[in-house]
């Protein structure tokens, strides 16, 4: 009987040598479970990528230009004591997981072969580490090569029956190392008979079983520690290893447990689906480190998490799953300031026995809280509290901080003894991190970057490891870098691939003279218009320029011209990708971190005066009453006549003797802008305030010399009004053209509950009513919030109202209904960002969409996909917020520096009252600082807190009544904290 089998050969019986398969189970989101069979076609043309090997050069696949990708591994790799002939390193997965920071060191770890097996395992275990590893492989200097061992026939290892996946992967690594050694030896033999220096390929692993097997199979292998010990700066490097593993071994003896177990993933999933548990992002209060809140979709208000036990090892930023606690455990949010630094000062980092999750002091503080809540009448407002039962996703990053001096046992610089110390993160919401180091003495007084490795249920604090030192505390370089790291700002120089996307002419690029040039296609020649730009002093990236002209019919032709960045940055090239990652330019006091390379931002795109530049113009016909008759969009070429600063422009407008066309054009613009603003205000736009100050720095050293509050001139609002107008016009046009994918910006109306507290405070303290039904009502009632004796009161209320608002966000038109598009603050139905493409990625995208809308060019597919745009929006929203925070933090730091060694008395206002302190805002410096009761006198005076009336009665010698909104005189000094060596601005009541 003729008989054919239907069976495909698979891993079990390998009919063909170049075919293998892999079988696994995939669970889909909808709960389906699928068996997946992947067939694998093995090849022999995957090169070893060593410059020693000629054979691979011949077989390696070529790209479209018939070129082989350049080989990575050096032909003379560095050697060591044991392997003097040089070595290629093949780390296993755990080596990367525990020692990623080591591999990133510039001075060691070159010529590393990253196996595909290892890379995939790293990806499964930790995505951030995977990204860092990928970044390493792209770093040419480090010579990391990804070898696809699973696809190469010689190194492919099918899984044996009954073998665990870990064992199989270990075997695959050993097999690859073995093959590499064999291959390199052969390659050298083929190259020359004389050459004796044959580099060894060494596996790096900490797995004992793996090491034993390697020894048996005669595969060269070494432990990570063993390898590092052979290097020069071993001490520093050893600190950079993750401590998670080591600690586990040490601690496994003890069974004491401080925190409850986290639930299993399936249990959490079921709970969240069923609605009995909730998922959200854990946010810790900046005032009280023991209090966190989680906003979950099921409720309007956030759920409170009180105490360490309930927060169960969650770190601010983690996505957590929680359970609501029974009603009798509900509490009002804390009115007390709790700072970890002061409360747990005396914790010993080394001692682990007898430590409780809640220290005695913490417990006391919590008890007082409870008492206070219980003392309240029924109308007191206990809020639902919850307890964290599991963590859906850790969002741990690298944290900047300093070593707690008190936790260091011996600070001698020469001692190389390993000790455990605490790292106090800069971000107050992050708990102290326990770190093992051999260089405690040197690290004292330095800004340090560290990561969290693990947080076991038997450890009160998370365990982490040292990454690198940024430099001395308070030094400008270290503090700036710390800021950028803390706010996740990408500040490394642009890689070469990005710079390759720049025009080849460099700074010599000019608008082509010939109108026949393709660059002129579809562009209008607006060079004869009297265009000028108005920007802050010293601005070099000029995004926008304006012009105005009277028309014969009495109306005005007004134009806003925006730098045509989309001409230079084409979608999906390396520069575009980098820009979309960075999302925005970040402005610090002394530094600007660009979104686009300098050449574009400050020269080719920048609408500099006296030269021709490509622009994207919005042209309107506007009546003298500032009604828009028509609007038009076009790509253009302009020549700016002058670049003014706000002050210069103001002076020129005010100078009656200047009667040239340019100045008159600006006067027209000013006149129209005032009318536009009035219209906006009538429609209910909010005039909000945020404390803005400007730091004057010395031009050369950029040391701060003075702090000024920002002055607002008419010309500021001139530019602002026309930019708003342009943005609104473009938003409407883009939405019309792309109702699904237009990139817009919205500012949601804040929920009423956000204003509850402020409304209540105003009512009680000033008998004022804050109406929050609509933005118009809010704008009107904010205008009535005045205090004749206190001109700043109105601004103060506006600042506080601003904090109740939602933050504006970018979104993709198809994801929201039209009524949700509204920009609450601007009272506009629709809005986008269009006017600053040099410094914001959203504007660049809007430019591309507008260009397609006016049929100037085809729309890139990436801008037609809702999913891709949503991802872009998500990223730029985060980047935008981070950039703002980084900018603010930078100003804060410089204000602190400007006040160094000074002793000033200033007016301040009380913004918030706690039972053991209050927050004072000093408008002169834009600083907001906490004054605790214990700062008023020692010993800490007793005080009566009346939360209903926002009054704190301080008893004792001080004998003073402090109430909300009160104007107080404060004395500003700075002091150096002994424990941290950190200088702080200190406020005291006068």
């Amino acid at each position, binding site marked *: 009987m003729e008989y054919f089998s239907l069976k495909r050969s698979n891993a079990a019986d390998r009919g063909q040598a170049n075919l293998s398969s892999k079988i696994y189970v995939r669970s889909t989101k909808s709960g389906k*479970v699928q068996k997946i069979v992947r067939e694998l076609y093995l090849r022999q043309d995957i090169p070893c990528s060593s410059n020693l090997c000629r054979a691979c050069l011949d077989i390696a696949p070529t790209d479209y230009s018939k070129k082989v990708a350049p080989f990575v591994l050096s032909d003379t790799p560095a050697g060591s004591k044991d392997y003097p002939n040089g070595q290629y390193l093949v780390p296993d997965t755990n080596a990367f997981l525990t020692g990623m920071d080591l591999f990133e060191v510039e001075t060691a770890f070159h010529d590393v072969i990253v196996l595909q097996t290892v890379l995939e395992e790293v990806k499964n275990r930790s995505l951030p580490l995977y990204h860092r590893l990928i970044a390493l492989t792209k770093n040419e200097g480090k010579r990391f090569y990804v070898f696809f061992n699973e696809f190469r026939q010689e190194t492919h290892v099918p899984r044996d029956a009954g073998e665990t996946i870990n064992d199989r992967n270990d075997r695959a690594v050993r097999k690859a190392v073995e093959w590499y050694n064999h291959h390199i030896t052969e390659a050298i033999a083929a190259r020359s008979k004389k050459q004796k220096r044959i580099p060894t390929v060494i596996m790096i692993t900490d797995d004992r079983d793996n090491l034993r097997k390697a020894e048996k199979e005669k595969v060269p292998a070494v432990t990570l520690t063993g390898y590092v010990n052979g290097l020069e700066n071993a001490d520093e490097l050893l600190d950079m290893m993750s401590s998670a593993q080591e600690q586990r071994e040490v601690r496994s003896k003890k069974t004491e447990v401080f925190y409850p177990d986290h639930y299993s993933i399936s*249990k959490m999933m079921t709970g969240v689906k069923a609605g009995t548990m909730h998922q959200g992002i854990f946010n810790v209060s900046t005032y009280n480190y023991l209090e966190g809140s989680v906003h979950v979709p099921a409720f309007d208000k956030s759920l409170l998490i009180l105490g360490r036990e309930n927060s169960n090892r969650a770190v601010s930023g983690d996505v957590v799953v929680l359970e609501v606690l029974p009603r009798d455990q509900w509490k009002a949010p804390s009115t007390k300031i709790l700072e970890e630094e002061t409360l747990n000062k005396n914790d010993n980092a080394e001692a682990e026995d007898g430590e409780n999750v809640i220290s005695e002091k913490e417990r006391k503080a919590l008890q007082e809280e409870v008492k206070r809540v219980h003392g309240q009448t029924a109308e007191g407002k206990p809020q639902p509290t919850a307890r964290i039962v599991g963590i859906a996703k850790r969002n741990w990053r690298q944290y900047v901080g300093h070593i707690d001096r008190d936790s260091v046992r011996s600070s001698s610089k020469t001692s190389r003894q390993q000790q455990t110390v605490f790292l106090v993160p800069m971000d107050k919401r992050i708990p102290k991190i326990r770190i093992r180091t051999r260089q405690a003495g040197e690290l004292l007084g330095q800004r340090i970057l560290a990561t969290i490795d693990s947080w076991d249920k038997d450890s009160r604090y998370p365990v982490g490891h040292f990454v690198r030192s940024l430099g001395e505390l308070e030094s400008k370089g270290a503090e700036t870098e710390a800021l950028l790291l803390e706010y996740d700002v990408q500040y490394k120089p642009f890689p070469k691939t990005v710079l390759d996307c720049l025009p080849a002419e460099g700074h010599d690029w000019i608008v082509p003279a010939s109108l026949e040039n393709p660059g002129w296609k579809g562009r209008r020649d607006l060079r004869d218009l009297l265009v000028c730009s108005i920007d802050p002093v010293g601005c070099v990236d000029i995004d926008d320029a304006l012009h105005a002209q009277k028309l014969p019919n009495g109306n005005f032709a007004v134009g806003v011209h925006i730098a045509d960045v989309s001409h230079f940055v084409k979608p999906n090239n390396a520069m575009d990708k980098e820009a979309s990652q960075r999302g925005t330019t970040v402005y610090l006091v002394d530094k600007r971190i660009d979104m686009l390379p300098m050449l574009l931002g400050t020269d080719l795109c920048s609408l500099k005066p006296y030269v021709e530049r490509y622009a994207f113009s919005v042209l309107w016909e506007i009546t003298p009453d500032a009604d828009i008759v028509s609007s038009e969009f076009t790509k253009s070429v302009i020549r700016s006549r002058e670049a003014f600063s706000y002050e210069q422009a103001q002076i020129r407008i005010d100078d009656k003797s200047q009667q040239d066309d340019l100045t008159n054009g600006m006067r027209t613009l000013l006149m129209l802008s005032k009318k536009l603003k009035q219209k906006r205000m009538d429609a209910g736009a909010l005039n909000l305030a945020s404390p803005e100050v400007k730091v004057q720095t010395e031009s050369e050293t950029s040391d701060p010399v003075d702090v000024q509050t920002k002055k607002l001139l008419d010309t500021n609002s001139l530019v602002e009004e026309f930019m708003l107008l342009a943005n609104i016009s473009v938003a409407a046009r883009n939405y019309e053209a792309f109702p699904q994918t237009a990139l817009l910006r919205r500012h949601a109306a804040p929920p009423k509950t956000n204003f509850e507290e402020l409304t209540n405070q105003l009512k009680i303290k000033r008998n004022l009513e804050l109406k929050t039904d609509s933005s118009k009502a809010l704008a009107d009632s904010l205008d009535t919030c005045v205090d004749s004796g206190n001109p700043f009161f109105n601004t103060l209320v506006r600042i506080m109202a601003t904090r109740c608002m939602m933050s504006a966000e970018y979104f993709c038109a198809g994801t929201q209904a039209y009524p949700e598009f509204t920009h609450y603050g601007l009272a506009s139905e629709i809005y986008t960002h269009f006017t600053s493409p040099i410094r914001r990625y959203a504007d660049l995208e809007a430019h591309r969409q507008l260009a397609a809308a006016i049929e100037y060019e085809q729309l890139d597919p990436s801008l037609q996909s809702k999913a891709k745009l949503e991802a872009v929006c998500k990223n730029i929203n985060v980047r935008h917020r981070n950039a703002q925070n980084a900018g603010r933090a930078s100003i804060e730091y410089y204000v602190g520096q400007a006040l160094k060694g000074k002793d000033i008395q200033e007016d301040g206002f009380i913004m918030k009252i706690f039972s053991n302190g209050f927050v004072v805002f000093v408008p002169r410096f834009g600083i907001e600082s906490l004054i605790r009761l214990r700062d008023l006198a020692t010993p800490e005076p007793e005080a009566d807190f009346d939360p209903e009336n926002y009054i704190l009665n301080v008893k004792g010698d001080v004998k003073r009544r402090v109430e909300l909104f009160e104007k107080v005189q404060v004395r500003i000094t700075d002091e150096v904290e002994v424990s941290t060596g950190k200088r702080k601005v200190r406020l005291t009541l006068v």
Partner: protein
Amino acid sequence: MAPQQAALVNLSPAELSFLRSSLAQTPPIRLDVTKGPRDFRSMRAEYDVLPGANGSARIALEDGTEALVGVKAEVERSPQRPSLGAHGEDVDMGDEDVDESTGKGQNGWVEMSVEVPGFREDDSLPVFLASMLKESLLASGELKDRLYINARFHWKLYVDVLLLSPALSYPLALLSMTTHLALLTTDLPALKSEKDEDPLFDDDWDAAVPLYPKTAGKTTTDKPPVIILAMAVGPNIIFDPCKEELAVADAVLAVACTNTSSSSTGARIVSIRTIDPPSHLTPPGIPNSMNSATGGTAPTSSADALTQRELLASSGVWTPPRGGMKRNLISQVTKMVVESGGIAEEVISALAAIEVG
């Protein structure tokens, strides 16, 4: 009801008569003279032929009949039914030893479809075959209980039976054996979640657990049932009849059996069904004596016709058999199937050997 035969047997009444009388001899002489009454036709079998399915098997008979079976399992949400009174639960609380899945399976959790070339899926043959196969699968109740995951979820088992060739002989036994082998080699992803949580599975296929657990040591676990076709001709019982033999059968019996849970030998019957042999359908010829055209006298009534035919039956001329199966014949068949070292044990162990070897 009688299954419609796909290919009619093209034998003359004389040939049929010859075949029948040789089968009725002692010992019987089968169409394939090398085979005894208990012998099965030789076959080739393999399993795991469909990589994407949870279990699969294919069996080809020497006459070219070939069947392919794929088993797919999907997680399905069980409709929540309000519990009938809480008191029932209290009783359950006490004994933890009882496997909670016992008795919770439902017949709807197994879906079976049979495809035979040349037939629509709602034709009687595929429907009849499917219901016979499904009936035997569900009869013992162990399979459906095994599909229980928790109170909210269960596995839904899709058994797709495909006859790859035209039905050259009555395919029930072949399909049943193929299904048996497919189910025997079916694996379900290993469950990681506990209790009534949303099910979460181990993503390692190698960790998957067999639907029918393998025999561990001496304790035997149950196996999927297999249907054995037996036919009776006169006093003789013949197993695994071919198409022509079926055409002259007095009676046909489909016996579904599975291994006994108590001992490793013998088998137990899960279900049993008689099948109308196709011979009942062959139109009887009219003997000359009853044909007025050939000089005979036509019977006056149908009762008269029956009597006359009865008398002719032993005359050597082919007459289709009538009536049911004799009781002692049935007990004889069941005994031969079930007894230690009987047909069922032989078939089941032979199929199991395919998987092991």
